[in-house]
Structures are given as structure tokens and as C-alpha cells.
């Protein structure tokens, strides 16, 4: 119960911050990515503000034995920079650079959707789910192949490569 409430509160703060930051305006994101015109440095301040916080707080949080309300931290120990992370980042960069939408703002925009979102978000979900399906299938074909290096045995509720985000 407490954990669910924590998720909701974290989400609320995240969404408010995202909208306040201006990043739910894709043309503002593109004005940052477009180096040739009148450059808008906003995104740099967003990322700087966010990482400025996490780089300090995460140090202390991750020194704890476990989270306050859960049994353990679900974070990958994977450090290998492999082909999929590079190819994935390239494909994401191309998609992001085309429209100015990344997943966070697209979700936040469900609060005030316009036709652009209805073209972008279903396609994004389709792409994300399709890739996860390929991943699951190739893992089933290559069993046993531990892809996740979490702290202890994988509980049944955990999907492959969980916590590797970041």
C-alpha cells in the first residue's frame, strides 16, 4: 500500500516537473537539438537540474542496504557496452530528433493530448512492445542465459533485463 502511494507521489512530482520544464513542448526540444537556428538551451537546464539532484542523492540512497519500503534495489549490474545499447541509442536518437518527443513527455501529454500524440504514442508503444517480444523470444531460445545480474535470485515477478534502464 505504502509502496503504491510512493509510486503515485513520485509520478506526480515527475509529471509536474516535466511539464514545468517545458519539455512537453516538442518544438522547444527541437530548438535545443537544432544548433543552427536561435538555440534554446532549456533542455540543458532540465538535464542539469535533474542530474544535479540525482548525482548527489543517489550516492546516499544506494549506500543503504535496501530501499525504505521494498526488499531490494532493482538495478542491473550490467556495465558491458554492447551492440544493442549502441544501436538502441542511435534508433532512439533518430526518432527523438525527428519529432522532439521522448517517452516521458509523451506520457505526460496524455494530460492534454492533441492529434500529434495520437500519432506518436501508439506507434512508440508498438515499437517498445515489439522489441521486448523479440528480446523475450531470443532469450527463450538461448536458455539458460542469465541476462540480468541483480543482487540476488530473480523473483518470478521480474521480467528480463529489468532494472537495466539506466
Amino acid at each position, binding site marked *: 500500500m505504502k509502496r503504491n502511494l510512493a509510486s503515485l507521489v513520485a509520478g*506526480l512530482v515527475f509529471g509536474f516537473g516535466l511539464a514545468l520544464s517545458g519539455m512537453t513542448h516538442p518544438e522547444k526540444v527541437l530548438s535545443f537539438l537544432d544548433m543552427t537556428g536561435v538555440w534554446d538551451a532549456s533542455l540543458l537546464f532540465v538535464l542539469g537540474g535533474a542530474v544535479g539532484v540525482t548525482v548527489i542523492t543517489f550516492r546516499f540512497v544506494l549506500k543503504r542496504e535496501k530501499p525504505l519500503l521494498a526488499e531490494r534495489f532493482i538495478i542491473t549490474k550490467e556495465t558491458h557496452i554492447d551492440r544493442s545499447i549502441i544501436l538502441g541509442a542511435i534508433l532512439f536518437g533518430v526518432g527523438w530528433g525527428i*519529432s522532439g518527443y521522448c517517452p516521458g513527455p509523451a506520457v505526460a501529454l496524455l494530460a492534454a493530448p492533441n492529434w500529434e500524440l495520437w500519432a506518436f504514442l*501508439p506507434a512508440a*508503444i508498438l515499437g517498445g512492445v515489439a522489441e521486448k517480444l523479440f528480446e523475450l523470444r531470443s532469450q527463450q531460445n538461448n536458455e539458460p542465459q542469465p541476462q540480468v545480474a541483480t543482487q540476488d535470485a530473480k523473483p518470478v515477478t521480474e521480467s528480463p533485463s529489468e532494472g537495466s534502464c*539506466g
Partner: protein
Amino acid sequence: MSLSAFLPSLLGGVLIGVAATLLLWLNGRLAGISGILWRLFFSKQGDALWRVLFLGGVVGGAALYYALYDDVPVARETFPAWLLVVSGFLVGYGTSLGNGCTSGHGVCGLGRLSLRSLVATVIFLVTAIVTTFVVRHLFGVV
């Protein structure tokens, strides 16, 4: 632009960092939107609700902001719909394959000093900058 014009962006960024801190400190989870969203479709019982609540919170938080300030994003009427579909698919597929997006690799990954996330962040930033140039200036799509 004066420096104060960037204040909302900085404050918004700080709030995003606070939210990521809350989720990790309380629940032990990284606030990567792409991972939380794509895995929702594969999550087993007991692993889905926190994702729905977090994502619902993101929508609710943005809704609160839009209710307080007159800043609702307006669609670009001339932007081709098919390009948005292509862009969406690439964003979904790429963030799933690369295990993270701006929030997962950028905010959380850099926060925990992950070299893997730094590499991913530099790659998608550079790729996005090149892509924006090509789309806007070589193909003239705005």
C-alpha cells in the same frame, strides 16, 4: 534570453531529480519512463500496479501544471502525421533495445555514474542533433 528565462526548466529538472530520488529511495526502482512503460505489457501480477500508478502520476502531475498555468502544448498543424508514426516507432524500439531513454539513461543513469548510461546519452543526443538538422534543414520539415 536572460538567465531567468531558464528558471522553469531548471526547477522542472530539479523536480524530476527529486521524483527519481523518491522512487529509488522508497521503492528501489529507477524512474526510467520507457522501461516502466514497455515492461508494463509483460509484467506479472504484483509488478504492474506500481507502474500504472507511477505513469498515472506523471499524467496527473502534468495535468495539475496545465490547470495552474496556461501552457498547454499546441499541435504543429503542418507536421506530417506519418513522420510522427515513424518517429514513435523508432523511439519505442530504440529505447527498448537500448534499455533506456532520457530519464532512464540521462537522469537516473548519469545520477548513479553509470558509464554505460553516459555512452548511451551521448549517442542519442548526438544522433538526435544530426537528425534534427537533416529533417529541418535538408528536408525542410518544421
